[in-house]
């Protein structure tokens, strides 16, 4: 058994193929929801209990959130870039394989459980590498907040398409 202490987590991605993995600053939590399974009810009169059968799988949703980063380093502020990806509908591929090696696309989103390889639970969740163009992630929502009590907060929601985000711990 190996569980990860949450203080060593992070969210990283590359802005281009071959580029360095960059950390989305100020994050403090992430969640992967799903996949789910839609159940189709087909109950009829005189059934003793409701009947249902499995329908279509539903895709995963990824959320992560933390404090808003107001730094203005162009191309370095990953929060700002994610908002840009949302505005432009830019997808995040698992790797450059998914886009024929294109260097212009963001890729390699990783949700780290623990980034210290000397500790238990070392590893991350990411979409499995494939050549399928349909396997990618879209930023679908951003939520920014500010209150007089504290500092600005930000949260992102991503839709996972074409394949699930899976656990990895030894290869990128």
């Amino acid at each position: 058994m190996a569980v990860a202490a949450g203080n060593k987590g992070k969210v990283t991605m590359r802005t281009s193929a071959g580029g360095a993995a960059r950390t989305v600053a100020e994050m403090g939590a992430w969640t992967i929801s799903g996949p789910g399974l839609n159940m189709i009810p087909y109950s009829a009169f005189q059934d003793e209990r409701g009947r249902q059968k499995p329908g279509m799988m539903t895709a995963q949703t990824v959320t992560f959130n933390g404090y808003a980063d107001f730094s203005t380093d162009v191309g370095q502020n990953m929060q700002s870039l994610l908002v840009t990806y949302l505005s432009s509908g830019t997808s995040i591929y698992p790797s450059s394989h998914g886009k024929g090696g294109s260097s212009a696309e963001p890729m390699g989103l990783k949700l780290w459980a623990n980034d210290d390889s000397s500790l238990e639970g070392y590893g991350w969740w990411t979409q499995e590498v494939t050549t399928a163009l349909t396997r990618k992630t879209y930023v679908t929502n951003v939520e920014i907040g500010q209150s007089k009590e504290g500092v600005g907060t930000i949260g992102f929601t991503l839709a996972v398409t074409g394949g699930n985000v899976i656990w990895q711990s030894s290869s990128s």
Partner: protein
Amino acid sequence: MRDLFTGIYTEYASVPASSFYNALTGGLHLEEAPQGTAFPYAVFSLVNNSLDQNWTNKLEEATIDFNLYSDSASGAVEITGLYEKLKEQFDDVNLTVAGYAHLKFRRENSWLNKMPSDIPNKSIWAYTVQYAVLLHS
């Protein structure tokens, strides 16, 4: 928190001297003033400090108390004047704190007390003013 204390004192003693600095002839002290310190004087102290850590940075929340003391025989004029001068210098001040970006120095509570002094027929005025502090590493 040492750097926060340094930042507060540096602000207090900044040049040109503030009206708060000039009015406090007994000075500003951390936690306790030396025995026999002349009135009026002030003491600031750390009430609490909590750390909120995300994956990349630290957020320090702290509560700082300023205690202002006066033994003026002419009522509350001196102590309330000190309070106004403290507000003037420290309300929402932009402190310089080594190793941190300074986010907030906000006055939240204050209360005034009149206490008997060790000296017969004399009283001490004490004004406690509480600030909420937010620092980000």
